Structures are given as structure tokens and as C-alpha cells.
């Protein structure tokens, strides 16, 4: 029952639409659907494997998604603004290689963190210059830098590996704050809240939505479109640098093939979280739940001895399924209506 039919027939009595209340909209939203899926997976998993409901196992399982989710938050903003960054996994490789190189010259833990974040930021700036200043499509630019950044890692490392990270550096990826709560979980929460506030509670966040819905309209509304996009690429680079710090600290070594294919999982997480791949809509809580869903799926399958490459089939199906099903649903509904 749309507005136009109401206007066309003024005699129609207005009946308050109870199904459109705020509570019902929340209940029907993508995020609550996702939450239901997460709970269902949790229950299925606890029946499927006796090892699932163990706090230490569950704590270990969070490593499946904490690093990826850090990038996914920044990527969500980038995708909402209508751009994409496929080079994030390669930024991890380059940042990790830079940290490994610094270790060979005797860098300590604080220096390593600064180097990791700085390389991430620089890579983000590199992408940003091509996309915002030269006006090139982000998908081609980041496919190019995806090869370039990882290529530099290969030039530096070849088929070698960097090891010998200082013992204190292991805190980021292997440390615990309290009981089963890891350092990575703490940073995951901090970063999630920070990005949630940035996107949903600030002018900057509104500008991101505006750009994604209509870049030209946003420009004429006085939003500095290119500047906002530049910052978003910087943030994505910075978060990739942060993920590199955590991942390198957790693995304790650097190979140029580190985090291969992670860009796919990050994009899947963002899309699964309800962010429109064409830009303009999406939310951080959605991405948070999507991170849990993906973490639970991979952890559950792992407990059932499903090999990693078969899990990737599930990720692929998940990616296509979450976009296809609502569209199939709408198509079926339209057909039924006539």
C-alpha cells in the first residue's frame, strides 16, 4: 500500500499500520536476521561437536575474525561511500615485511607497532592519491596495488621468512587481558565502538552515506567528497596496518604469502553485514554480527575436521547467498502479487 494509491483514492480510510512500528522494524532488520542466524549456528555447533562449548576453545575461535573485522569496519565505510579496496591483504603483507625488516636492524616492540601502522597508512595514502586526486576507479587501482604491495614483499623476502620478533611483541596477538579475554578482543571492541560512533554519530559518518547515495548531490551540498574518500582510504590502510601488527605478532613470523586471499573474506564480512556493495547503506553493528557469524562458521567447521579450502566454499556461498536470497524473495513476492 504505497502513498500514491492513498492519494489516488482519498476515500480510503487511514488504518494505523501496526507492522511499521519502530520495534517491528528493528525486528525485521537485516541485523536481527543475522543475529538469529548467529544464534542458530551457535546452537547447531554445540550439538555437532562436544568441544564447541568450551570457553578456551571459543576464545581461540575469536582469532578467526578479530583481525579481519578490524579491516572490515574501515572497509564498510569505504564501501558505503561507493569505493572498494582490494589491496588490504597485500598491505598486511607489506607492513608485516617492513616490521620483519626492522627487526633485523634491532627494532623494539614500540618501533615495530609504529612501523606497521605507518606502512599501512602510507599504502592507504598511495591508493587514495590514485583514486581521489587522479580520479581513477578504485577497483582497478587496488587490483594494481594488490599486486604491487605484495610484489614488493616478494622482492624483499623471496621465498625466505623473517623471524626473531621480540618476546614483548607477542603480547598483541597472543596476550590475554583477563581470563579468556584476549588482547585482540579488547582492540576489536575498541575499534568497533570507534567506527560505530564515527559512522552513526558524526557529521563525517553522514557525509559517508551522502556520498554513497549520490556523490554529485553530496558535492553540491558542500561535502568535500574527495577529502572524505581520501580519509576513508587512509583509515582502511591504517586498519590493515593494525591487522598486520596483530597477525604478525600471533604468527611470530613473516612470509610474503601472509594473509593471501584475506581481502575476499573482509569483503564477504562487510557484505554479509548488510552493507550495500553499491554504496549508500549499511551499519557497523551489522558488520560486528557478521564477524561473529563467519567466526562461528569457520570454527564449527574446523571442529568437524572440514579442510580450509572447503570452508572457503561456504564463505563463497554465503557471500552470494546473502545477496541473492533477499532478491529471490522479493522477486517471488512480486510474482505472487501479480
Amino acid at each position, binding site marked *: 500500500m504505497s502513498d500514491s494509491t492513498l492519494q489516488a483514492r482519498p476515500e480510503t480510510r487511514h488504518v494505523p499500520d501496526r507492522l511499521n512500528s519502530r520495534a517491528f522494524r528493528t525486528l525485521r532488520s537485516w541485523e536481527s536476521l543475522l543475529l538469529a542466524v548467529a544464534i542458530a549456528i551457535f546452537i547447531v555447533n554445540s550439538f555437532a561437536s562436544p568441544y564447541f562449548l568450551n570457553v578456551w576453545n571459543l576464545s581461540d575461535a575469536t582469532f578467526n575474525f578479530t583481525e579481519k573485522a578490524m579491516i572490515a569496519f574501515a572497509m564498510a565505510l569505504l564501501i558505503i561511500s561507493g569505493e572498494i579496496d582490494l589491496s588490504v591483504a597485500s598491505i598486511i603483507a607489506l607492513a608485516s615485511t617492513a616490521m620483519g625488516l626492522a627487526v633485523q636492524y634491532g627494532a623494539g616492540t614500540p618501533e615495530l607497532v609504529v612501523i606497521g601502522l605507518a606502512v599501512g597508512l602510507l599504502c592507504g595514502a598511495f591508493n587514495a592519491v590514485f583514486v581521489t586526486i587522479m580520479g581513477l576507479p578504485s577497483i582497478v587501482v587496488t587490483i594494481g596495488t594488490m*599486486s604491487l604491495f605484495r610484489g614488493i614483499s616478494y622482492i624483499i623476502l623471496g621465498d625466505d621468512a623473517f623471524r626473531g620478533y621480540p618476546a614483548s611483541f607477542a603480547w598483541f596477538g597472543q596476550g590475554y587481558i583477563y581470563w579468556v579475554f584476549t588482547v585482540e578482543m579488547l582492540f576489536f571492541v575498541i575499534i568497533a565502538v570507534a567506527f560505530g560512533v564515527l559512522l552513526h554519530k558524526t557529521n563525517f559518518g553522514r557525509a559517508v552515506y551522502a556520498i554513497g547515495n549520490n556523490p554529485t548531490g553530496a558535492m553540491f551540498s558542500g561535502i568535500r567528497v574527495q577529502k572524505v574518500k581520501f580519509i576513508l582510504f587512509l583509515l582502511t590502510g591504517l586498519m590493515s596496518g593494525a591487522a598486520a601488527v596483530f597477525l604478525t605478532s600471533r604468527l611470530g613470523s613473516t612470509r610474503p604469502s601472509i594473509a593471501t586471499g584475506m581481502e575476499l573474506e573482509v569483503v*564477504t564480512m562487510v557484505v554479509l553485514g548488510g552493507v550495500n556493495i553499491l554504496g549508500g547503506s549499511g551499519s557497523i553493528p551489522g558488520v560486528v554480527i557478521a564477524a561473529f557469524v563467519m567466526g562461528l562458521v569457520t570454527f564449527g567447521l574446523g571442529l568437524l575436521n572440514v579442510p580450509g579450502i572447503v570452508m572457503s566454499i561456504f564463505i563463497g556461498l554465503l557471500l552470494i547467498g546473502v545477496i541473492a536470497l533477499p532478491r529471490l524473495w522479493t522477486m517471488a513476492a512480486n510474482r505472487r502479487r501479480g
Partner: protein
Amino acid sequence: MVSRLIPVREAILAGAILVLLALVASRFAGFVAPANLANVFNDTAPLIILALGQMVVILTRCIDLSVAANLALTGMTVAMINVAMPGLPIPVIIAAAIALGAVMGAINGLLVWKLSIPPIVVTLGTMTIFRGTIFLISDGKWVNAHEMSAAFTGFPRAAFLGLPVLSWAAIATILVFGVMMARTPLGRSIFAVGGNPHAAVYAGIDVGRTQFLAFVISGALAGLTGYLWVARYAVAYVDIAGGFELEVVAACVIGGISIAGGIGSVGGAVLGAIFLGVVKNALPVVDISPFWQLAISGSAILIAVAFNARAGKARGRIILKSTVAPT
């Protein structure tokens, strides 16, 4: 104006390839001997075939990131068919490879056409699904040379008029595409859909169907290359041609095919592939570690896309710009 630019762009690329060859020849003259150049071409043949398939997809404003996984899955399937039925004639194997590849392309195409899911999402997803399926059907095992029949592995290497069949497959694909893009309704509608989808609709062209057909073409060529690849290297395993989709996209971008669709040419795609093939084969000759390959193709993409964008600028106009300018 754009149509006049294209030959210029191709001439620049051809010039770059010649300069590259001259540089390598100055270090090692044997590289430009005809026999070696034929080898380089043969080595680049799979990339040329896939780049042409990718070209039609990109021309219709889509992208196909699943080509390498499609190639690997088809290659593994036909290798396993060959192991199970060594007597099966090669034409049947080739037909099966093309059909299987086309079906996978059709899956991509249907998702893009009927459900209007963005092509990058579809093909990122099917890329991992196809790759994972190889593991499922092969159980992670390799199919090695001694398990394949001699006819299966011998076909791409069989010499015909001085060139291996693999090279002829690339030449035939180039010729077919040359005619198809310039002389058939399908070729012209592919350009029309990418150039201006709305205008294409008014001209009676079904945009979704054309995109679907582009994916089928790309998939069929990936299937064909899957057989040629596995037979040539006489081995099939889960990770064959891993990451090759990036090289294919790189060949197209370097060849001047606009990622925004509608602009590009068969000659450009072929030259882009040959450029990457020459770089790849020249690196060991001039004593540069093969680990440089990835960074070089990445830089080539960035340079090419920056260069091509400058040629295609000045499309939209910002009406209020004069008020922004400081006075």
C-alpha cells in the same frame, strides 16, 4: 574522437613492447631470435585467450575474477576424465572442457543477469566456490603426467606449420574475436551495452542478456584454456593458475580496455597480454629475480590505467565550478 585514439594507444603499447625487446636484446641477443619469440608467444597463448574473454566481460561493464578458478576446475575435471577413460578422443575432451567452462560462465552470467548482483561480488564468490570444488572432486590429490594418456598431453604441443597447437589456438581465438567484435550483432551490442546501457535498451538490445553471453564466452574460453594448460604442463592440482585472474585483468587494463566499459579493442587486449608475456620471459634473461614479476605487473596496471584515464577525461561537466574558483 575516442575511436581515433584507440589505434594511437595500441601503437604506443606496440612501441613499448618493441623498446622492451630491444633492451633485452642489448643484453642477450638470442632473446629476439624468431624461435625464441615463437616460444614467448606460445608461453603467452593462455593469457591471450583468457584476456580476450575477459575483454568482452569488461566491455559490458562487468568483471570476471573467476576465470583462473574456472580454468583450474575444468583442467582438473578433464584430467580426471582422461584418467578414468584414457581412450576418449581429444575432440570430445576439448568439447567437454569448453562446455563445462561455459556452464560455469553461465552461472556467473545468470546471477548477474537475473538477480542483478554486482559482477565483482558474484565472481569473487564463484572464484572460491570453483577452487574449493576442485579440492572436493580430487580429494586434494594431484593428477600426474604418467596417469594421463599420451594423446591428452601431446595435443597442445603437436607442431602444425611450425607452431604448436597451443599457439594456433590463440591465433584462432584472435581471428574469431576480430570478426565477432567488428562484424556481428553480438560484438556490436557488447560495445553498445558498455558504452551506454540506456541507449542500448532503446536500440533494442537486451543489456542483461548481452552481459550473460559475455560471461558464457569468458567461461568457455577459460574451459578451453583449462584443458590446454593441464595438458601442456602435464599436471593438475588444486592451485593451478592461482592468482592468474589478476594477470588476465592486468593484460586488459594495460591493453587499454576501460574498466568503465565500452572502450577497448581486440588488438589492445592481445598486445597487453604479449607485454606481460615478454616481461615474464625477459626477467630471467636479464638476471632479475622472478619475484619481481608481481610488483612489475602491479606497476604496469597503475601506469596503464592512469595513462588511459587521461585519454578518456572530460566527460562530465561541473557547472558551478566557476563559483568555486578563487577570485
